[in-house]
């Protein structure tokens, strides 16, 4: 569904991404693992068109109609219309606006307008907690609730692929668990999910596949089952020392 | 280079030389001015000063030019924009004198500009007919700078006319003794109101409200409401055109109907009548004209033909008259001799559209202090003993 190949990006003078390739299929959760600063966020931003990718990269998506669309070089708002929704690190919500407004803005792209009402019901079904807070200003909500708004807003754009950047950041363990359950449910609707996450174990528990990224390069990949026991994962976070799990 | 092209070159050079020589043997008279075409002063200059310069130049050139000696010289104009900035104005005047070498320079607009220009005009030896300048120190300045002349009368003279008018109305039993006075907080407003305060007190009037407001105020209703609350017989406002319009408008709206409604600068603008129509009737202001004078009649009609609208009835006719004086002075001297022209302006007697003009201490005394809208014109009513003064009428209530 999402095909990325040979994507490179610079952060100022720093080469943050170096020829990364990956793919995400329908109904699949793919997790990207790696230490801080490895290039995970840059990868998602480059796919979403927020960060300029070096020429030569290929980003393509085939939606429900199976037509393949080339996305490289397109502005961010057009990429949303093409079916990719990013929930950025730090959530990127509109703090001064209400929950309802945030969610309805998610349906701003023309692709999502027809099913706006149905999608809103779907989102509120996923996050019942938002139902009673539709009129609340998002800035005044807790971190977990804000994260729900952010994910809900992305879902409102009826995406084919959902990109999530550290959704568990700043959430309590209980909230975190809830979140991962919901991601698993979202996947059932046929979306592809590309997830960047610190919480390796929890994300591997719901993921189908994963990539390990270090210094802007993919250094390992495999099924979630295989990665759960792969020492490379722990090395990516805790270094090469002896570790008793 | 061939001989032929050399010859052509020589011919061209000769032609150039002839052209230059032609320019040197002067048949035109160069007149320059630096005036505010942009910036805050542009509005004032565009009403009173610039149109009269244009009308006069056209008139002179249509008549074949100024007669200098036995030759008629047409006017060639050089115009600069001083952008309402004293320093720019000074620079432009220097440029006119030293670069363009103009024969005469017409003055800028406003008291401040004319005073800033005075030392330069004096140093360069040009006559300065400072029509739109109004200061009580006029006598002192004309002594300091003998080339400088004033034309609008002293603030004190204007105030004398005002007080005289009010006193007469009081004596005739038309108004009581209570005056509300309002002034714009700049030199014009303050000088006039200071003089008026003294004059009115001396004449036994009681000033029941006396405030100034800043230039650029966008709502004068508070001022008028307090003035109205003091229940005066007279509203005396030394205001600028936007405020003059606003004061009238507001007074009408809040139903403030003093027996004398005196506002201005701006009352004498044709636009005032245009805006307020019948409500202008009886409103007084500075200036005025003697519409019975044939010169004024001709001037108003002529100004309308050339510029497309009527002139104001205060400084405009005087501006035009000052230019007539300049022209006559040049013609009498018979050559471009600025020192002689200055002397002639100061000592001679001239026939102009406003009647006979003879400067005293470099000041024109042929002025109207108070004018009043009566019917379709803004007539001079004071000084009361001036020839042609119309009797004052009582102002009807706003319609």
């Amino acid at each position, binding site marked *: 569904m999402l095909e990325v190949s040979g994507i490179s990006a610079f952060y100022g003078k720093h080469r943050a991404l170096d020829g990364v390739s990956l793919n995400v299929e329908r109904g699949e959760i793919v997790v990207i693992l790696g230490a801080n600063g490895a290039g995970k966020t840059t990868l998602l931003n480059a796919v979403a068109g927020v960060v300029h990718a070096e020429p030569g990269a290929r980003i393509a998506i085939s939606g429900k109609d199976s037509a393949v669309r080339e996305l490289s070089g397109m502005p961010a708002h057009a990429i949303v219309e093409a079916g990719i929704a990013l929930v950025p690190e730090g959530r990127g919500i509109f703090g001064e606006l209400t929950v309802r407004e945030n969610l309805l803005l998610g349906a701003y792209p023309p692709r999502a307008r027809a099913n706006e009402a149905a999608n809103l019901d779907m989102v509120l079904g996923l996050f019942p907690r938002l139902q009673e807070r539709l009129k609340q200003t998002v800035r005044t909500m807790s971190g977990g609730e804000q994260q729900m708004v952010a994910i809900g807003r992305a879902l409102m754009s009826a995406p084919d692929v959902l990109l999530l950047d550290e959704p568990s950041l700043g959430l309590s363990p209980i909230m975190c668990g809830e979140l991962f359950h919901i991601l698993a449910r979202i996947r059932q609707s046929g979306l592809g999910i590309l997830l960047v996450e610190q919480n390796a174990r929890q994300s591997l528990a719901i993921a189908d596949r994963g990539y390990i990224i270090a210094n802007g390069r993919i250094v390992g990949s495999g099924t979630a089952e295989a990665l759960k026991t792969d020492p490379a994962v722990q090395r990516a976070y805790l270094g090469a020392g002896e570790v008793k799990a | 280079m061939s001989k032929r092209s050399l010859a052509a070159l020589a011919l061209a050079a000769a032609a150039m030389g002839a052209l230059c020589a032609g320019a040197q043997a002067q048949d035109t008279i160069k007149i320059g001015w630096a005036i505010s075409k942009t910036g805050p002063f542009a509005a004032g200059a565009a009403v009173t000063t610039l149109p009269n310069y244009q009308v006069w130049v056209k008139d002179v050139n249509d008549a074949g030019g100024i007669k200098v000696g036995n030759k008629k010289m047409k006017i060639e104009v050089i115009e*600069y924009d001083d952008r309402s900035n004293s*320093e720019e104005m000074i620079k432009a005047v220097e440029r006119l004198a030293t*670069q363009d070498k103009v024969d005469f320079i017409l003055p800028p607009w406003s008291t401040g500009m004319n005073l800033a220009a005075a030392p330069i005009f004096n140093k360069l030896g040009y006559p300065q007919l400072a029509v739109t300048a109004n200061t009580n120190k006029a006598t002192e300045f004309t002594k300091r700078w003998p080339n400088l002349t004033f034309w609008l009368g002293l603030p004190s003279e204007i105030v004398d006319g005002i007080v005289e008018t009010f006193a007469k109305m009081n004596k005739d039993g038309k108004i009581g003794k209570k005056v509300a006075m309002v002034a714009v907080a700049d030199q014009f407003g303050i000088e006039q109101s200071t003089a008026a305060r003294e004059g009115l007190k001396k004449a036994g009037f009681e000033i029941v409200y006396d405030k*100034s407001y800043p230039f650029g105020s966008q709502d004068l209703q508070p001022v008028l409401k307090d003035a109205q609350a003091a229940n005066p017989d007279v509203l005396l406002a030394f205001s600028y055109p936007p405020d003059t319009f606003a004061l009238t408008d507001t007074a009408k709206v809040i139903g403030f109907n003093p027996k004398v409604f005196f506002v201005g600068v701006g009352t004498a603008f044709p636009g005032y009548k245009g805006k307020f129509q019948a409500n202008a009737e009886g409103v007084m202001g500075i200036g005025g004209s003697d519409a019975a004078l044939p010169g004024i009649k001709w001037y108003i009609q002529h100004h309308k033909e050339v510029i497309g609208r009527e002139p104001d009835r205060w400084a405009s006719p005087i501006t035009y008259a000052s230019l007539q004086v300049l022209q006559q002075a040049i013609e009498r001297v018979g050559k471009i001799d600025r020192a002689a022209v200055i002397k002639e302006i100061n000592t001679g007697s001239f026939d102009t559209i406003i009647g006979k003009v003879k400067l005293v201490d470099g000041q024109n005394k042929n002025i109207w202090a108070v004018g009043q809208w009566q019917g379709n014109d803004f007539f001079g009513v004071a000084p009361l003993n001036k020839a042609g003064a119309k009797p004052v009428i009582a102002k009807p209530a706003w319609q």
Partner: protein
Amino acid sequence: MSPRSIGLAGAVLVAVAAAAALPLVGSGYHLALGISLLYFSVLATAWALFSGPTNLVSLATAAFFGIGAYTTAVLTELLPWPVVLAASAVVGIVVALIVGLSTLRLSGMYFVIFSFGLAELIRQVVTWYEVNIHGSVGRYIFADTTTEGIYWRLMILLAMALGAGWLIRRSRLGLAVRVIGQDEVVARHVGIDTTRAKLALFAVSAGFMTVTGAVMAPRWTYLDPAIAFNPVISFEVVIMALFGGAGSLFGPLLGAVPLVLLFDVLGAYFPTYFSVILGLVFVFIVYGLPHGVIGLLESKVAALRRASLETGMSAFAERVTGPVWSRAAAHEPATDAPVLELIDARKSFGGLKAVDGVSFTLNRGEILGLIGPNGSGKTTALNLISGAIPADAGDIRLDGKAIEALPPHRIAQRGVARTFQLVRVLPASTCLENVIAGLAFHAPPLWGEPADEKARALIARVGLAGREGMPAGQLTYIDQKRLELARALALDPHVLLLDEWLAGLNPSELQDGIALVKMLRQEGLTIIIVEHVMDAIRSLCDRCVVMNTGRKIAEGPPAAVLADPEVIRAYLGDADA
């Protein structure tokens, strides 16, 4: 002096002499034009003294200019000329100090419009005073001065303004505001009292504007608030300085001169269409010269300079030339007392408890690793120590003395230096200046030749020898990190805080980086590192403090804490949620 610089000096001298002789040979118009050129040049130069380096666009020029003009109007018949000018300077500076103290915390557009409002307020108050107290709005000035005198005074004033600009640029004050303009956070962390520096410069700039007004006033014979406080002057000066390039000494001059000439030419030849043409010229200038006139010149120069810089790079491995950091030996008390103590430090943002009662100590000469997953509060803890963010509660002691209430520049002066998570160099400054910024504001400050020498040594030390003259913004990411470290070391710190300093390095660079930190420790420096590169933590740290969700969850040797199940859970999460 080289023959070339003698030639240059000679040319400048001839130009100045020619300019000074203008009143003797030129016409009145030339003189008037000269006065326009000079007074705008002085105003634009003075404006850029403050606004250039700080990037705070001030529209208060008319206020100070007007104050100067009024001082002349009031005093000119009472006092001799030099005293009038001195008095105006004093009045201007005093007003600037009062205004500056209250306004310098405003930023961006708020400052711009505030400064405009200030000028208008002063104008209104002066008007009110003149009307109600003085009894007349206009003032006449009959000073005993000539146009030539005004011209020459302005020339002297311009020379003084340029001289002041030159001196300030070379002074610690100049460096301080250059640092502030580029990065106020860095400025505080190298020990700069930012308020004082800005205030000083604002006052100097205002002083020149005021004196310009005082010098110009007699030219107009008559003065009222509309003339003295003409707001158009403020706008014109901003436009001229920005057009020329406010960041450099001669930039405003390069803006003022062509624009005054342009105004003059357009005003002379197109009096009717002046506005339209001027507007169009302006729009085209904005497109054509995005960095001002000086930018045009500098880009040419920079291209030449860059070509010559490509040579002379040294590898990271070959520069360890001996200890540069030497404080321990010189003036450290030899006690076992901890260098730094955090006792129950707390900080919340809104509802989020970023640091939630954290305590730890830092012993002399050790490297302490502060680790934990993303968002666990490590950087906030560093910010509390360096004073970047004030703590809500808790004590922080440096050498036994409380520092939690001190502003960051005081903490920096007491010997806490840091690097930043997202590298913060001063991009427009040279590498040398970046490091000198670290030397010039600690106690006792190092300045001039010794500072140069030490900065060069530090630059060589981190492997950047040969790039002293290069703007820091042109360095690669890794080199910017090195430079940032050099600047921190320049502070001569007791305690060095490294916030993810090793992040983003490739494996060989990482080894070099680790070696460098080790060496610093051997030289006796005490260090806290916040780091995600665990291999570095293992090989560098004596001890680790592990944080999660704002709390300390473990403390001990790296191998032990990294094997702690709770730490592993913090990093990798629970499989079962």
